[in-house]
Each structure stands twice: as C-alpha cells, then as structure tokens.
C-alpha cells in the first residue's frame, strides 16, 4: 500500500493535534502505551484516550515516526522553519514515540531557555515517556539537566529581592518556600524512579538517577538517607533479585556511614557550620564524581546534621545490624537468589572496614583527636546529641582492642563495667549485636543445614569461602 506524501502529512497533523487535545482535555494523563492494532485505519484517529491513559495504535507508528523525525531534522538544518508552538507539539509527539531521540530533547532545552516551556512540563513529559520506556537513557539524562536548572534557580534567588526594606524576613520566607519546593521535587523524583524500577527488572538507569538526585538535591541529608533506607525495605523484599535495588541500599549505607562518622568525629557544636558539603569534610567523596560521569549540579547548602536528625537516626552498628537482619530474613524466606548473597557481602564488607578504620591505631584512653577516629573528642565533650550511638561506639572501642576474628567478644563487652562509662551505660539498654565474623559463619551453617535448594547451598558455600579469604585475614 503506497502512501502518498500528502496522506502521511495529513495523518501526522492529525496525530499531533489529537495528542495536544488529549493533554488539554485531561491534564491527569499518567501513562502512555502502544495499542496492538496492525490494521491500518486512515479514517480513524490512532490516538485513544481511556481514563488517564493515552494510547497510540501501533499501525500508525511506522508512518508517523520517520516523517516527524525528518521534519525536526530539517528544522535543525535550517531547511524548514517551525514556530515555537509547532516545535513544542512536534517534539512532544516525537518523544512519546521515541524518547531516545536526543535532538528532540535538545530542542526542548532551547525552548526552555527562551521561556517557551516550563521545567515542570518537561519533567511531566519525561515521566510519561518512562511509563512506556522505563530505561530510556536520554529521558533520564534530560531529566537531570532540568533538575540542574531547577537547582540553579533555587540556590540563587533574584538579586532585586535583597533591595527590599524588610529584606531579611523576605529572604527567610523565600528560602523556606524554595526549600519546600525542592523537597517536593525530590519526592517526585523518588516516585518516578520507583515507578520505573517496577516496570523493568534491575533498571540501572532509574536507580542511578535516584542516586544522582540524592547526591545533588539532598547531599549529606541524614534524614532523607535514613528515610529512604526505611522506605525501601518493603520494595526490595518484593524484588529479591533486583541487583540495582540492593545496590541503592548499599549506596545509602555508605552515605550514612560517611555522615555519621563525620558527625561523631566532630561532635562539638562549633563544628556545625552551615557550609556546602564539599568543603565540610575530607571524608566526603569527591563532589565532582558522579555515578554517571555527569557534572555535579550547583547544590544548595545542605543543612548540617542537626542534633534532632542525629538522634532520630540509629547508630551505625544498629543500622548494620538491621541491614544484616533484613538480608538474613530474605535469604531464608526466598532461597536461591544470588542478589541477596551479594548484598550480604557488600554490607558485611562495609561494616568490617568501618569497624577496622575506627578502631585501628586508637590510643589506650588517649584523648588526642584523630581525623578518622569516631572517638576523637568523645571523652572531652558532653554527649547530648548521640545517645545510643556513642554508648555503643564506646563499647566497641574497648573491645576493638581484641584481635580480628575474636569478634564474639564485642557482645560480651556490653556488660563490662568501666567507671568512666557508668553514666553512659545507664542511658539505656545495650543495642542489638552488630554483625560479626562468627555470627556470619553460624548463619552459613544454619542455611546449609536447612536448605533444600541446590543453588542456595552453592551460594552459602561461596559466601563462606569469601568470608574466609577476604574477611578472615
């Protein structure tokens, strides 16, 4: 069936118009999709709107896409003019059919920069595209560009504001409004990532975007990090072979380790300067390093961990204990998933090294501050901010003097009296047992005893081998 150029052009115009009208009729469209419909029906619109779902009948795609694609390219080559409105409509149509067409996103960047489009519009379009193409790299990349624009706007409000009479009050109100806005944007991003992760297993692009968002929109924010860790428990429990989901948890743990270690090493109130996180501490990862090589956004000043934040986040040993418990629970309930065993390795490794770094070279009750040392300053400062955490760390410091491999001692150490610590130990019951090499070996043994799946057995043996060769040095 030979389509004349004219027939295709009419079809294209109709589709572009229908899509535009659909969005006008229903601003709550939340999903796009392809309708399997191989019969060509020129007389009917291939655009279908049902509830909040926008569908395109499959027959029209092979005519529509090359034509619109070509039209945009001609515009780019300056061989054909398109006004702003036409560009908005055409790029929208194009990207709903093929969101990996970088040129279309770039045209939209230009439209945004000259004010013909709002960032919210493109975030919405991207979100829709992801319902059908949850991995689309170009969509995620464009999304990050938009977020960088948003961040830039939020961190440098207009200069004329400072000219106002009651400038200070307005600045504060403005700051609150902006930070609330960012907060909403952040949560929306988390939602978009979660949706995309659910639509495609081990969706690396979605998860690494999630990491980027946290690194750029909430750097060092203890509360956000911990909330994410808590809220993701249910998700990973229902997606036990999603490597990327567990990798996200590993990222969160590492970030929490970094933040909590810093706070402990500079626990004196005067260390809490409102500074950009990149200059706050030598421990932070290079701020220019991104998960995907893209440049860091100009992040707003993160609020330093407040005493309330620190108090609401459990101490590191407890966090690790909880993570290992989660892993144990999942490994036992769902035998034979390598992802869970990999996660266990990561968590235990992180724990093992953190423990080593924070006890290695520690003095015998010495109070000289060391940069890495959790206990630096502990003995000389009152402990108002970190109840449970400090108590446990103190316990560990005592027992860290034991050799590697004799980790069973740590648990016992909780009850050992120390006149200097009576006050702190009385603060509350001792925390749960942090992970230890011996308990890991017991775990492996119990799995091997009760497992009925050959894969589970293999994974357990491999884990034991790893413990012996990597950890048990």
């Amino acid at each position, binding site marked *: 069936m030979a389509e004349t150029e004219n027939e295709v052009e009419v079809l294209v115009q109709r589709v572009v118009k229908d899509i535009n009208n659909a969005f006008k009729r229903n601003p709550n469209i939340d*999903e796009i*999709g*392809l*309708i*399997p*419909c*191989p*019969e060509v029906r020129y007389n009917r619109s291939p655009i*279908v709107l*049902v*509830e909040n*779902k926008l*569908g395109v009948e*499959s027959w029209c795609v092979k005519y529509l896409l090359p034509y619109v694609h070509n039209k945009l390219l001609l515009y780019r080559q300056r061989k054909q003019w398109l006004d702003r409105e036409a560009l908005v409509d055409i790029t929208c149509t194009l990207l709903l059919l093929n969101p990996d067409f970088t040129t279309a996103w770039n045209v939209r960047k230009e439209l945004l920069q000259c004010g013909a489009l709002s960032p919210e519009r493109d975030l919405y379009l991207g979100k829709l595209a992801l*319902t*059908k193409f949850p991995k689309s790299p170009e969509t995620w990349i464009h999304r990050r560009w938009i977020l960088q624009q948003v961040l830039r706007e939020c961190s440098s409000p207009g200069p004329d504001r400072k000219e106002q009479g009651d400038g200070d009050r307005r600045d504060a109100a403005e700051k609150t409004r902006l930070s609330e806005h960012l907060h909403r944007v952040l949560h929306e991003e988390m939602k978009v990532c979660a949706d995309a992760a*659910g*639509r495609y*297993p081990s969706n690396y692009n979605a998860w690494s975007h999630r990491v980027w968002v946290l690194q750029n929109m909430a750097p060092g924010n203890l509360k956000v990090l911990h909330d994410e860790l808590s809220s993701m428990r249910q998700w990973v429990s*229902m*997606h*036990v*072979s999603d490597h990327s989901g567990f990798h996200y948890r590993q990222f969160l743990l590492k970030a929490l380790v970094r933040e909590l270690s810093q706070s402990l090493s500079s626990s004196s109130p005067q260390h809490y300067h409102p500074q950009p996180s990149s200059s706050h501490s030598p421990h932070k990862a290079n701020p220019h390093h991104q998960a995907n090589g893209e440049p860091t956004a100009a992040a707003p000043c993160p609020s330093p961990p407040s005493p309330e934040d620190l108090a609401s986040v459990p101490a590191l040993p407890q966090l690790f204990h909880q993570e290992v418990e989660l892993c144990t629970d999942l490994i036992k*309930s*769902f*035998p034979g*998933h390598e992802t869970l065993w990999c996660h266990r390795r990561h968590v235990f490794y992180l724990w093992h090294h953190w423990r080593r770094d924070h006890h290695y070279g520690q003095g015998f009750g010495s109070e000289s501050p060391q940069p890495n040392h959790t206990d630096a300053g502990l003995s000389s400062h009152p402990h108002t901010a970190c109840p449970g955490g400090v108590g446990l760390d103190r316990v560990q410091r005592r027992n860290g003097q034991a050799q590697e491999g004799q980790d069973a001692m740590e648990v016992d150490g909780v009850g050992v009296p120390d006149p200097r610590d009576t006050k702190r130990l009385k603060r509350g019951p001792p925390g749960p047992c942090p992970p230890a090499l011996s308990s890991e070996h017991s775990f492996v043994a119990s799995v091997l005893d009760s497992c*009925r799946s050959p894969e589970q057995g293999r994974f357990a043996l491999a884990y034991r081998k790893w413990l012996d060769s990597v950890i048990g040095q």
Partner: protein
Amino acid sequence: MKLYSLSVLHKGATKSNLLKSAYDLSSFSFFQRSSVQEFMTFTSALIVERSAHGSRASVKEQEYLCHVYVRNDSLSAVVIADSEYPQRVAFTLLDKVLEEFSRQVESIDWPSGNPDTINYKALDIHLAKYQNPREADAMTKVQAELDETKIILHNTMESLLDRGEKLDDLVQKSEHLGNQSKAFYKTARKQNSCCEVM
C-alpha cells in the same frame, strides 16, 4: 515477586475447560492488558491439556513461570508467576484452591461449566492475598507437604508440545484468543522483538 493469573480448569479427554480465573494485570501496560489476559488463559489451558493426571509442573516461558497441578480427578489449577515468586508457595496455593473448589462446586459441573455458571468466588481473594508470599503464611505449611523432586520443570512451552506441533499454529486455532491478540502475536514473533508473547 508477582502473581499474574490463577485459573481452575477441568482436564477433559481432549481439551481443557476453563471453570474460573482471576487476574492481576496491574503491572502490565494498560493497553496490553486485554491481550495479556487472553494469552494467560490460552497458556493455562494448553498447559493443563499437555500435563498428565496426578502431576505437578513448572513451565518457564520468557520471564514467567507457570505452575500447574493436575489432580487425578481431572480438576486442575494453574498459577502464572514471575521468576522470583517461590515455587513452593505457588504449589501450596494450587493445592489449597483445588481443595476448596472441589468442596464448593459439584464434580458434575466440572466438565461443562464455565466462569459465568460456576459459583466459586474466592479466587480473586486468594490471588490478592498470595501476592505477598509471606503474608499468606504458606511457608510453614509447605515444608512438610511438598516433595519438590516430583515437580517437573519445563524450560519452554515448546517442550510440552508433540513432535511437529508448533505453538504458532496453536495460537492461530485457539478460541481463547481474539483476532487482535492473534495479530499481535504474529507481528511480535516476526519482529523477534522484546514484546511479550503473553
């Protein structure tokens, strides 16, 4: 970790008869759902037809696992799950459903009944409840009852078919599939794309 469909069928001499089915298609793209549902029905019926009396099997097809139990009295159940869903819980579900169904629906109605005439209402509830395998509290029960070594594992649907039989032909002839689904299957196969068959 998902369950997509749960069906009760009667294995007849030459064909299987669908008695009741429940679906959870929320994770599929909206416009694909009706086709997906048809394919799941088609697959469930085919698997029961090609499975022996008194057998349990798991059939792998793309990223799905279809678990089937055909009882000696010809009453059968199929649950279509993803590859994460624990097999043992799936079979516990099948046992439970068939036991309950056979108590509530007279066996005289099995060979000729259909979803409209059969009075069994609990299938949707079971499907919803078992979405979370741990909440369904199946784990403890399973240990004692199921002998996993007796579950046959098929790596493809093809392995259920007779020599020379083609899945494409069965799709074309099927009364479970509408024209749109059949056409969709054809184009998907031709393109060898990552579009799901089911």
